């Protein structure tokens, strides 16, 4: 990966040679510069809560200012985006708190330095009604309790996984009463259709496809009162610290996109290709913030992750997974974390 400001090819030649080969070198240098121009990558999702990413991408809001372009690629889940981020294939990634907490818990457990941890730049939105448990009634599942004894397809270490835990607890379904099958979200429909599992936990838009696929056999169990999914903009600490202007460009792109979502339904529909009613059904609260819900969700996700990994609950200072400076600079009012929150790790 090249540094944010772009590294320039340095050609060290004796001045005499330089003078002699100047007509040839200049075009080559120009070509080399063009070919090495940095393109930043932001990995988004097709989830309804990630609508700001799609609007900003479609409206060019990330690239409104001069600078290296920001390219958006779309993954099937936040977990996938996180993997891209961690693999260096993306510079910014959008995800829920669960995959991020799972990754941090794992890195922490593995003793990886915090400097290498992914960090939260901002919260983009929060949703409580986009995740559903969808079952095939033909498999004898009419109510939530009927899930016991059946198999359930979902993406492990995702918000769907976390939500199922909340759902199961609430409906008093024992963990071992349901067999969970780790399935990418785009394969849930086929898995459900093939009988690999009897129900799925998915989110919009995959959940819509599954419901359409099942038709009258679809039984949907909402998780809204049990599970809120915060959608987080995540990046690497080093990148954020070295590229404040880039980070601000991204934040501004999200802020403008959310403004379009809030204030310009027609533009939203034009850019997303979805009706405002579709957005309304998701009841997503888009807001660029670093706030208590994000922190609470993250802490809850870390607790859940530690439990899933069977490791001790890590007591991490928020700074270990949150960078406040970009949001403090860009929109300080939106940073509502407790001001006395310790910056340094302070083990209990």
């Amino acid at each position, binding site marked *: 990966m090249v540094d944010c400001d772009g590294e320039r090819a340095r050609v060290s030649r004796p001045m005499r040679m330089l003078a002699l080969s100047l007509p040839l070198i200049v075009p080559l240098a120009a070509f080399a510069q063009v070919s090495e121009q940095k393109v930043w990558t932001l990995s988004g999702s097709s989830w309804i809560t990630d609508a700001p990413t799609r609007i900003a991408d479609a409206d060019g809001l990330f690239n409104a200012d001069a600078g290296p372009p920001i390219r958006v690629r779309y993954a099937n889940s936040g977990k996938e985006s996180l993997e891209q981020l961690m693999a260096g294939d993306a510079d910014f990634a959008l995800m829920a708190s669960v995959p991020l907490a799972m990754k941090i818990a794992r890195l922490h457990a593995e003793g990886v330095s915090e400097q290498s941890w992914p960090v939260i730049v901002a919260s983009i939105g929060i949703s409580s009604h986009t995740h559903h448990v969808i079952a095939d009634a033909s498999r004898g599942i009419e109510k939530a309790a009927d899930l016991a004894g059946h198999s359930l397809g979902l993406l492990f270490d995702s918000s769907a996984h976390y939500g199922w835990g909340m759902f199961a607890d609430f409906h008093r379904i024992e963990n071992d009463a349901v067999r969970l099958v780790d399935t990418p979200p785009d394969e849930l429909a086929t898995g459900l259709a093939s009988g690999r599992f009897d129900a799925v936990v998915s989110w919009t838009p995959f959940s819509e496809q599954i419901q359409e696929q099942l038709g009258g056999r679809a039984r949907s169990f909402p998780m809204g009162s*049990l599970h*809120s999914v915060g959608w987080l903009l995540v990046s690497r600490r080093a990148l954020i610290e070295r590229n404040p202007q880039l980070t601000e460009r991204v934040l501004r792109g999200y802020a403008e996109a959310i403004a379009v979502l809030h204030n310009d339904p027609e533009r939203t529909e034009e850019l997303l290709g979805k009706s405002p009613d579709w957005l309304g059904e998701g009841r997503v609260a888009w807001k660029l913030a670093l706030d208590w*819900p994000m922190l*609470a969700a993250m802490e809850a996700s870390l607790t859940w992750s530690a439990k899933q990994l069977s490791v001790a609950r890590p007591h991490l200072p928020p700074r270990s997974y949150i960078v406040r400076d970009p949001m403090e600079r860009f929109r300080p009012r939106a940073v509502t974390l407790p001001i006395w929150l310790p910056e340094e790790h302070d083990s209990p």
Partner: protein
Amino acid sequence: MSLRRLAGLTLSATLALGALVLAVGLVVWQQARSNLAEAETLMAARDSAYRIDVAIRYLNHVRVDPGILRGLVQQSERLTLLLEGERHAEAETARLHLGEIAEVARTALAEIERGKDVDATRRNLAPMTSQLRIHESRALDALNEIIEDRNRGIATTLMRAILLLILIAAAVAAVSCAGFWLFFRRIRDPLRSVSDAVRRFGAGDDSVRVPVKSQDEIGDMATLFNQAMEQRAAYQLQLQERIKEQQCLYRVLELTTDDNRPVVEICRETAAVIPPHMLHEDAAIARVQWAGESFASGHWDDAGASLVSPILVDGAEHGRVEVAYVGERPEQAGGEGPFLAEEHVMLDAIAMHLARMLRDRKLRAELARSQRLQAVGELTGGVAHDFNNLLTVIMGNAELLSDMHRESDPRSADLAAVIQTASSRGAALTQRLLAFARRQPLEPRTTDVNQLVEETRGLLERTLGEHVQLDFRLTEGLWSACIDPSQLEAALLNLVVNARDAMPAGGGVMIETANATFDANYTAARPDVSPGDYVMVAVSDTGTGIPPEVLERVFEPFFTTKEKGRGTGLGLSMVYGFTKQSSGHIAIYSEPEAGTTIRLYLPRAGDDEAPQEKTEAAAVPTGDAHVLVVEDDELVRAYTRDQLLSLGYHVRSASHASEALQILDNDDSIDLLLTDVVIPGGMDGRDLARKALARRPALKVLYMSGYTENAIVHHGRLDPDVSLLSKPFRRADLADKLHAVLAG
């Protein structure tokens, strides 16, 4: 643009901006009200949010209570309603999370109602309470942001309003300053110009003017200043002209009051004085015409337009003063041609000064003549008085000698008669002298002058002779005159004789009578004439006339133009003395070779005084009464005694008053006291008579006097209670007086 209009525009702009301030203020006030209402709504929302917060805290930290959950639902819905109209972007977020809170609360309620194991149910609800916290947090954040933005919006609105008000106030100030600056600039320079002009004017620069640079009030002021300066210059020019005129008049006054200068010299000097004081002095010439002569300052042949003022003396033009310009000169507004109106007034004043000078000189000449006649009269009167005494003695003794020697020595008697005749002629002469001297005894009475003239017609016709035509023009209704008729007859005779002598080749004499009234205006220029009614008697002839240089002396005694031996020079003197003594007035007008007219103005008699008939003279009476003669002159005393004795009277005589009183005391037979008025010894005849009458009240008194100006005779008239015998007297006169006194 006028300052008034500029002020109006500035004021209008300021008022408009002020109205704008007011309007903006109203808008701001309305906005503040609206913001306050919104703030109250948000405060209510915050209150609800606080209740929600407290409820969720309770649910999280105390226990899950159905009542709290229901209240939470209710508050969430209420708060959602409060935010229903809110347009803030975060309002939707807040409503969304409030909806989530309500839904979670309802789900929890449903779960509680469904659950049998309360503790287990509450444990299951733990994730829900966590969800409540999440949504509450987001809702509160959104609400806080709304409130914060609203507060910021209010503050921004207020700041903008304040900024707008400040800007408008600044605009008002700018407009006011601009207006002030415009005023100041419009006023400063013109006022400075006016100030400089006034300062220069104060330093004596009369030519200063203020440039008129604008058509506003300042321009008007500058125009008025310039007009005032022009007017002042015009007034100054006029004043200089008036001063010149006054200087001219003063110079003329000096000339005309200089009695040592001859009139001709004054006229010549006056003509020289006038031109330098005219408006166009370099082209002015002047001349004075008087008594047929012309005195000019330049060549009058070159004169153009001229201005003339006549020299009027007693209404008659005696000459003229004239001024003219050589060449053309511009017309003067309000004047006469090229002359100023004031110059005409000045010329009239010069003519008036000259007229006054001529009149004064004439009056002074008349006064001098009158005074000379007065002096001559006094001298003549004194001489005549003494001469009368001598003539009385001579005439009386000659009469006695004639009587004594008529039989015995006829030759001596004839000589005595000659002496008597000469004495009579001498007495007549002295009477004329006394008449001229206004000291003849007059016996004025109310007289019908027309009748008197008619009665003298025959005498006058005989006097004039056949070659002189005598005409009468007697006015009917002629007033009566208070005069001595015998003296008027004598005066007429004298005048006719003079007329006759002035017409050696014959001619005509006209005698006229008329009523005349002299008012105060007429007599003002004639100090010897009193205003009143007069009876005019005029005698005109067609004779040779009297030259002017002679005319002033014709009333002097012994002055005559007749050949030697034909005139005594006392005729006109007697007429003059009679008229003046009668309180009348005499005027003479004569033109050489044309004739002479002499007018006598005799005082009009009172209305109740009827004309008195003339009494016939009686024969010389005799008597035997006892008469006491008191006379200091021994000759006169002796003459008088002899005359009395010849008339049969008994006579005793005394030389002074004391002796007379002694005789009176010793002789009771004295019937009549005949005393001279002037006697020595400290007691005159009047005093003597008074004392004598005190002793003898029945005593008769007869005065003798050749001199009428004494205590007995006042102004030539006899006192009504005294009898006077004028010296010299004849024997018959003495007899008549004695008889009359003794009879009375």
